[in-house]
C-alpha cells in the first residue's frame, strides 16, 4: 500500500516518495520546512490513508527521552505500600508493572498492528534528546530496568519526526533518518490545496486571493511570511464575511489594505510595514 496523499492533503510526488521509502525501509522520516506547510498534519494523514493507529508524542523543552519510553512511579508504590495494612490489595503492590506508566514509544511498540508514531517538534527538546533515542529508533527496542526485560516492537512503527530547525540535530541521528524538506508550495500546488479545503470557492476569488497572498509573501522585509495554514484561515474568513473577488479588485482602486490582513500577518511590525508601503503607494498586491 502506498501513500499518495489524501482527499484532504495534497502530497507532492517528492513527499510521497519520501514517505514510501521510509515506510518500506522502516526508517524514521524527518520532516522540516517552513511553519504552516503541514509537517505535523502529514503524520495524521499517513495514518489515515494507510489505516493505521497513530501515536503522537509532542516534545517540549522539558521533555526527556525517557518519558517517551516509560516512567516508574515509585512514589505511588511507596504510598500504596504504606496503606497496605489498611486493606489495600498487596498483590498490586508486588507487581511492579502496575506502577510503570508507558510512554508513547512503548505504546506504539505494543500496538497489535503496525502503528504510525509522530514525534512532533523534536528540536524543542534538550540538545541531547535525539542522541538518547538513537538506539530505540534504530533497533526499535529498549530495556526496562524495573521489569528487567527488553521491550521490543511487535511491528516496527512508521516514525515521522518534525523539526522547526530551532536546534541542529546530531549527525548520528540524521544518518538514521530519511529526510524531506517541504518546500513552500508553488501556485499550482497551492491551488490544489485550497481546492481541497474549499471545493466551492469561486474561481475568480481563488485566483485573486492567491495573487494577493503570493504578492504579500514576496515582500522581502516581512518578519514572518504567511504560510499555507494562514492562507486557509484567510480564505475561510473571506468566505464567511462574503467578500467577493470584486471587493479584492477594488482594493487597487481604493488603495486599501486587503480585508482581514490580521489572518495573514501575525506580527505587528509586518502589519505596520504593509501600512507604510500603502502610504508610499508601493502596495505589493
Amino acid at each position, binding site marked *: 500500500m502506498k501513500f499518495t496523499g489524501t482527499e484532504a492533503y495534497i502530497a*507532492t*510526488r*517528492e513527499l510521497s*516518495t*519520501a514517505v*514510501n*521509502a*521510509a515506510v*518500506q*525501509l522502516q*526508517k524514521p*522520516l*524527518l520532516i*522540516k520546512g517552513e511553519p504552516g506547510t503541514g509537517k505535523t498534519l502529514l503524520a495524521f494523514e499517513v495514518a489515515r490513508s494507510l489505516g493505521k493507529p497513530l501515536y503522537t508524542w509532542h516534545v517540549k523543552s522539558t521533555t526527556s527521552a525517557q518519558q517517551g519510553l516509560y516512567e516508574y512511579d515509585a*512514589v505511588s508504590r*511507596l*504510598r500504596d505500600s*504504606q496503606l497496605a495494612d489498611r486493606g489495600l490489595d498487596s498483590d498490586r503492590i508486588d507487581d511492579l508493572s502496575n506502577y510503570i506508566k508507558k510512554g508513547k514509544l512503548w505504546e506504539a511498540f505494543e500496538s497489535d498492528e503496525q502503528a504510525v508514531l509522530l514525534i512532533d517538534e523534536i528540536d524543542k527538546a534538550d*540538545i541531547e534528546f535525539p542522541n538518547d533515542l538513537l538506539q530505540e529508533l534504530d533497533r526499535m527496542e529498549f530495556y526496562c530496568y524495573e521489569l528487567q526485560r527488553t521491550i521490543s516492537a511487535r511491528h516496527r512503527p512508521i516514525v515521522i519526526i518534525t523539526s522547526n*530547525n530551532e*536546534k*541542529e540535530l*546530531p*549527525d548520528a541521528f*540524521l*544518518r538514521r*533518518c*530519511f*529526510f*524531506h*524538506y517541504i*518546500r513552500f508550495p*508553488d501556485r*499550482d500546488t497551492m491551488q490544489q490545496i485550497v481546492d481541497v479545503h474549499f471545493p466551492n470557492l469561486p474561481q475568480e476569488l481563488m485566483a485573486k486571493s492567491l495573487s494577493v497572498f503570493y504578492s504579500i509573501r514576496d515582500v522581502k522585509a516581512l518578519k514572518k511570511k504567511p504560510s499555507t495554514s494562514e492562507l486557509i484561515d484567510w480564505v475561510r474568513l473571506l468566505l464567511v464575511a462574503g467578500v467577493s473577488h470584486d471587493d479584492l479588485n477594488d482594493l487597487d482602486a481604493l488603495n486599501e489594505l486587503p480585508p482581514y490582513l490580521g489572518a495573514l500577518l501575525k506580527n505587528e511590525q509586518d502589519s505596520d510595514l504593509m501600512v507604510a508601503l500603502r502610504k508610499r503607494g508601493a502596495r505589493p498586491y
Partner: protein
Amino acid sequence: MFLDFFLLLRRHHLPVTLPEYLTLLDALRKDVAEPTIDDFYFLSKTALVKHEQHLDLFDRVFGEYVQGRESVPAEVLPDIPPEWLKDALMRELSEEEKAAIEAAGGFEALWERFRKLMDEQNERHEGGNKWIGTGGTSPFGVGGYAPEGFKTDKSAPGQGQRRAAKVWENREYKNYSDEVELNTRNIKMALRRLRILTREGAEDELDIDGTIDRTSRNAGMLDIQMQATKQNRVKVLMLFDVGGSMDDHIDLCNQLFSAARYQFKHLEFLYFHNCVYETLWKDNHRRKDRMPTWEVLHKYNKEYKVIFVGDASMSPYEITTPKGSVEHYNQESGLVWLDRFKAQYPHLVWLNPMVPAYWQYTQSLDIIRRWSGNRMFPLTLNGLTGAMKSLKNPKVTFEG
C-alpha cells in the same frame, strides 16, 4: 551501479556515507519508486541529503551526473539551435568581429566555450548571467548580445506534477544554501561546559534525601519533600571587539555569537573597538548609544563570567598610554580599564580568533595576554573548551 554518483557527491563534499548509499540501494531494490529519473532524484535526495543547506549542492551535482550519463544537451541549454544563434550573431557582427571569432576557433568552439562558461558559473555558485555580457573582453559581449538568449529557463510549468528535471535545474533550494545556518552544534556543546546548576523556582522534583529523612522522623509514615529542579544560572558578560582587523574573523564570531545566545539564559553583550575604554556600546549598528564602562562595572556584579572576544592586535599605545586610542582622546589608558575589569571579575577569559602560532609576533597581544594571566584562548573548539574550564577555575590557563 550508482557508485560513481555516490563518489561524485563525495567529491563535491556532500557529507554522504556508505550506510546511506546502501539504504538507497535497498530502497531501489524494494521498488519504492518508479524506475524513472524523476523518482530516482526524489529517492536519492531523501535518502542521502540530511540538511536543507545541502539540497542546492545536491541538485547541482545531480544535474551534472544526469548530464554526464544521458548526454542530453538540450535539457541543459535552451532549445535555440546553435545555427539560429549563429545566423543572428553573424548578422549583428562586424567583419572585424567575425574574423575574431574565426581566430577563436570558429563558432562551434565559441559555443562550446560558452557552455563551459555557463557550467562553470553554476559550479561556482555565482548565479545570474553576470559573466556573460559584461566584461569587455568576453566574446559574448561583443555583439551586444543579451544574455537572456542563453538562459536555461524553461518556464511554462506543466499541469499537475512539476518535472523533477526542472526542479534540480531551477535550484529551488538556492536560498536555503545562501542563508546557511552555521552549524553551531559543536560550539554549543563546548559552551555547555560552563554550567552552574542551582535550584530556584517552583518545587517540582522529589527530594529523595529529604523525604527519607522526614519519613524516618515520621515513624515510617511517608512524608514527601519536594525541591526545585537544577538549572543553569550562569551569568555571562561577553565583550566583542568589532571593526578593523576583526573583520577577517567575522564568520567565526557570528557562530560563537549565535551559539552563545542560545546556550546562556543570562547573557549580556557589549562591543568595543580594539581595547576597552570609558565607554562601550550595546548595539553594533548604533555606535552612538554608548554605555559608560563604569555603569557596566556597577551593573554586572562579580558573579558574572566575562568573555572578551578580540584579536588584541593594535598599536601597543592603544593599551598602555592615555590618549592612545585611535578613535578618541581617552583620559585613562586601556590597561587601566582592563585592570578594573580584572579587579571586578575574578572569572574572565580572552578568546582570540587568531592562530596561536602568530601570537608571539604581536606586541599588543602579548601585553593583553600577560594582563589576563595567560587566560587568552584561541577561538577553536579546544580553546573554547579550555576557556570554559578557566571560567570555572581561573587556574586553568593556555600556554600555547
